[in-house]
């Protein structure tokens, strides 16, 4: 399979997946009991039956669900119109966009720390197999895997706020809202410590394990033996021959992990009352705010799908073997 076919396949998969997500999203919220008109005007507003009927016609709800309503909804979504939140009374797309950066900040820092630490520790663990670092790394990742994210968050929240005096939630102290950047940035950093730490611990284990098994595999290759026979030192072999190849699976993992990262963000933002997409998702769930839930799901799913596709494309540039075969 050459690179063009590979790319077309990946693009096709992404499109099909987005289509599946759109269908799920449309059908699930259409089968809900209750009237979609309510989603437009808010739940608690009382209006007469005539007005409701007029609204129904205005929004095309008297037409058949398929294809009219489906295509109409699809068109709305394509234009970024995700409806109005029941609980916040604001357009869903505005709400989501305003929270997006907070979440990206949190998961961005968490992922970068986890990748740096995980790759380094995994490299040492695989190279010095059965050493203390290796046993420690394996034990750590096993326990981290078995620990529920939100519970780890709760523990760090309790420990950090009691013993270290760290803030228990939010992104910025109410007193510092609207202050100049040199006051706000240290405050935000202070608020980010615990959620980022939770996220880093959570992802660290997996990067460590993948890096470890990847470096083990690379070091079993014959060209490593050749390099060693040439009289290169271990460090030189690792740096010149092993590291680059062993890093490849990490690229795929970052992409595959995105779905996992989103789950982490939902739990961690809930525990730390961090004002991001994850917290929004949880609020939408608790308040049964279906337009918000639907919009958040659509946004999260499509971002993960696209990021996955980009990682697949990036992979073909990083790994020449994909081209050659």
């Amino acid at each position: 399979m050459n690179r063009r076919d590979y790319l077309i396949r990946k693009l096709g998969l992404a499109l099909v997946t987005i289509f599946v997500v759109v269908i799920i999203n449309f059908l699930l919220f259409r089968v809900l009991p209750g009237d979609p008109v309510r989603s437009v005007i808010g739940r608690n507003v009382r209006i007469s039956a005539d007005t409701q009927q007029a609204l129904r016609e205005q929004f095309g709800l008297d037409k058949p669900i398929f294809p009219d309503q489906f295509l109409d909804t699809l068109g709305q979504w394509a234009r970024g119109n995700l409806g109005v939140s029941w609980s916040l009374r604001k357009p869903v797309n505005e709400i989501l966009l305003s929270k997006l950066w907070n979440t990206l900040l949190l998961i961005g820092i968490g992922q970068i720390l986890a990748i740096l630490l995980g790759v380094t520790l995994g490299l040492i663990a695989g190279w010095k197999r059965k050493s203390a670092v290796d046993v420690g790394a394996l034990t750590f990742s096993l326990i981290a895997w078995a620990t529920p994210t939100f519970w780890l968050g709760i523990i760090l929240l309790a420990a950090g706020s009691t013993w270290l005096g760290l803030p228990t939630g939010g992104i910025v102290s109410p007193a510092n809202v609207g202050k100049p950047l040199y006051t706000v940035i240290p405050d935000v950093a202070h608020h980010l410590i615990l959620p980022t730490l939770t996220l880093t611990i959570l992802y660290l284990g997996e990067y460590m394990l993948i890096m470890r098994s990847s470096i083990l595999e690379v070091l079993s290759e014959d060209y490593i033996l050749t390099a060693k026979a040439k009289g290169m030192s271990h460090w030189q072999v690792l740096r010149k021959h092993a590291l680059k190849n062993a890093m490849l699976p990490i690229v795929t993992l970052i992409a595959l992990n995105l779905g996992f990262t989103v789950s982490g963000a939902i739990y961690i933002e809930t525990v730390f009352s961090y004002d991001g997409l994850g917290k929004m998702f949880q609020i939408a769930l608790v308040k049964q705010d279906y337009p918000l839930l639907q919009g958040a799901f659509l946004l999260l799913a499509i971002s993960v799908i696209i990021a996955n596709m980009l990682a697949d494309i990036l992979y073909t540039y990083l790994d020449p073997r994909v081209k050659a075969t």
Partner: protein
Amino acid sequence: MNEHWTLFKRNLQNFWGDFRGNRMGLIGAFLVLTALIAAVFAPSLSRYSPSEVIRDENGRGLTFAPPSVHAPLGTDDAGRDVWTQLIYGARISMTVGFLAGFIAMFVGSLFGITAGYFGGWVDNLLMRTTDVLLVIPDLPLMIVLVATLRQMQLKISPLTVLILVIGLLYWTSTARLIRSQVLTIKERQFVARARAIGAGHFHIIRKHILPQIMPLIVANTVLIISTAILVESGLAFLGLGDPTQPSWGTMLNFAFSRNAVTNGAWWFYLPPGLAIVWISLGCVLLGNVLEEMLNPRLTGHNLEDERHMVSIPAPGASSD
């Protein structure tokens, strides 16, 4: 039948001989068994019922009371015994985890065997389905599914909804694993011979393929159960559990939303989380050891002095 039985007994003895020497596996088995025992014998392990309010001499409910003789793990915000809720919660958490795990195993094996054995468009369709399912972020999907399914008033209990949603979403890794195993087995001589003497597909699958992949299915199920228990705890924490039948995740939801953290009631939020770690760690250790014993991998490398066959403990099949 007799012959089969002797063979089975010999296999079991060999297996136990190997397993006995594996410390990780024994620890895993211990963790899983103790949790199972606590769940099964819950009523005999506590004086109280899970919803009973514990009172002091004056008849006042002991809310957020630290561990004492009356309540070994303290009490919650309503004055109920945390230990009692913990062991009754084990029943809920483990029932959901095991049933969801079995559903995932069944669906995954069915699809894996069908795809691997028949190949062609069935295989293609299956692999594309798993491709699609792998990319959709699972927690948001599950939240949306559970939330809407509940709203539809289908007259099925919230726990059943959880079991079905988890079970029907986590079969993809099993299906892929089983498929690849079936692909290699169906090329073996004994399958070709069976086919040559006119054995039907169903006969071949049942008599020749299933016995070969059964151990792998068992190991994989144990791993999926740990994923299912973790996922259930997360959904319950977000409020999607059944408040009338609290699992460990529901307990943590109560603890968190009723300010156990700000009240310093560590006895309320530590035990349920530790219990989740306990059982999921147990399942992962057990599952990994079983998988390793069936599927040893070479892990020595060229920068070492000696090379030997060792197996590495990898954590569960794809996690989230």
